[in-house]
């Protein structure tokens, strides 16, 4: 960071745990100022308890971050949750709607809230957290996979829409990552599954944060990229 430059500012959804929290920590270590949106209190410089399905609530929290810090350089859309082991015929309308509302709706609301601030300065970066499952498909969590796949469509289209500004929109598609979203008895934690991965282990939240940080700091030539730190789950 050049001397005299104000520290860059990141808005992170899902900042209280898992990947979002790891992003907030890493950015903080690099001197960024962080605003965290989460249902729970996050350990960021400006925590806001917000449900990302609440468009007005997201906008208010983002505007508050911009007012407090003067700018928004990066948005990380990491808020999400996971349900597995559900046959497609058994996914209820309520489960489907909730999954789409949080993962896709939350990402849309985050993008919509930060874009005016980024457009005003003509620069910024948005990194949406998708999933390796959106690339490969998965048998027993179709609503999650569909929502994460929709995020990729959103990312590529928004990336194109703002391509001629210095705003970059990209996705990180983590492999199975060791976060609280993976239940202790999750299929993805089982030794038989991990043995199928070239790296033979879960991905750490920190490894996802490093990919986000790379896109945020040296990613000016990525437009609609899908960077997948996935331990070899999808190659």
């Amino acid at each position, binding site marked *: 960071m050049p001397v005299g430059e104000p520290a860059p500012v990141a808005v992170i959804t899902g900042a209280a745990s898992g990947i979002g929290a790891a992003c907030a920590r890493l950015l903080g270590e690099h001197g960024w100022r962080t605003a965290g949106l989460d249902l729970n209190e996050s350990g960021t410089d400006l925590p806001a308890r917000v449900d990302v399905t609440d468009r007005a609530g997201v906008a208010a929290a983002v505007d508050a971050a911009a007012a407090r810090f003067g700018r928004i350089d990066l948005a990380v859309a990491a808020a999400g949750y996971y349900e597995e082991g559900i046959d497609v015929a058994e996914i209820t309308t309520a489960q489907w709607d909730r999954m789409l509302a949080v993962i896709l709706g939350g990402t849309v609301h985050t993008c919509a809230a930060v874009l005016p601030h980024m457009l005003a300065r003509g620069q910024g970066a948005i990194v949406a957290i998708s999933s390796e499952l959106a690339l490969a498909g998965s048998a027993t969590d179709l609503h999650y996979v569909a929502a994460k796949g929709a995020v990729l469509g959103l990312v590529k289209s928004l990336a194109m829409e703002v391509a*001629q500004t210095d705003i970059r929109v990209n996705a990180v598609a983590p492999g199975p990552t060791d976060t609280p979203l993976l239940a202790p008895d999750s299929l993805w934690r089982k030794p038989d599954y991990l043995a199928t991965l070239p790296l033979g282990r879960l991905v750490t939240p920190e490894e996802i944060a490093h990919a986000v940080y790379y896109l945020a700091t040296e990613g000016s030539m990525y437009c609609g990229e899908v960077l997948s730190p996935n331990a070899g789950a999808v190659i």
Partner: protein
Amino acid sequence: MPESPGLVALVTGAAQGLGHATALRLAADGHRVAVNDIADDGRLRELADRIGGAAVPGDIADPGAGPRLASAVAGRLGPVRILVANAAAMAMSPFLDAKPDDWWRQVDVNLTGHFRLIQAVIPGMRAAGHGRIVIIASGWGVIGHPNATAYAASKAGLIALTKGLGREVGPQGILANAIAPSYIDTEQLRVDASDAGISLDEMRQRYRDLVPVRRLASPDDIAAAVSFLAGPGSSAVVGQVLQPSGGVTRTRA
């Protein structure tokens, strides 16, 4: 995650362009860098002196080059732990006019030369339980390009090699990944401009118009991608194809 201590890196095709920028970046990251290019000219030695590394010239298409380069680097700096497979030959022509010699020259340098070099460096990486292989592929290897079938095929071959290698040696702590750039502002643009019979600035503008972000990648942009893939932050990235092309490929494939 601890920062890697300085590792021994080898960059092929390092006399100019993105190979040159990559050697400088890896040296700035703290690595000890050996640089290769086909000609043993002043540029390579000047670069090696500047970064305190080693110059190991040679044509990687020469069947003996892989083992020779690997042992030359091992003798001067230590076994290669980061290989950047960047050297490339390119000859544009309509498919039916492509001369077999030109076809094979591109495949021999871009694909087979690096195949042999990778074979030669893997034992050292395996012994260390750690290695990074960064393949410079091409956006044309992802989406193809008219009049560049041999080049595109060689680069697509490198992408497939990356994926197979990632699966095969990933379990041994060796991470193979590729970067597929598209239009980069390097010396090659002068060649392209000359071929097209236009000025360098006209060539730049023509290429910029093809890039969704309306900017050509700089060699430093690609070197930054190499730095990420060679560094500690990419420890879960294996068999992937990074595409810092301003949207040329990710929005079309």
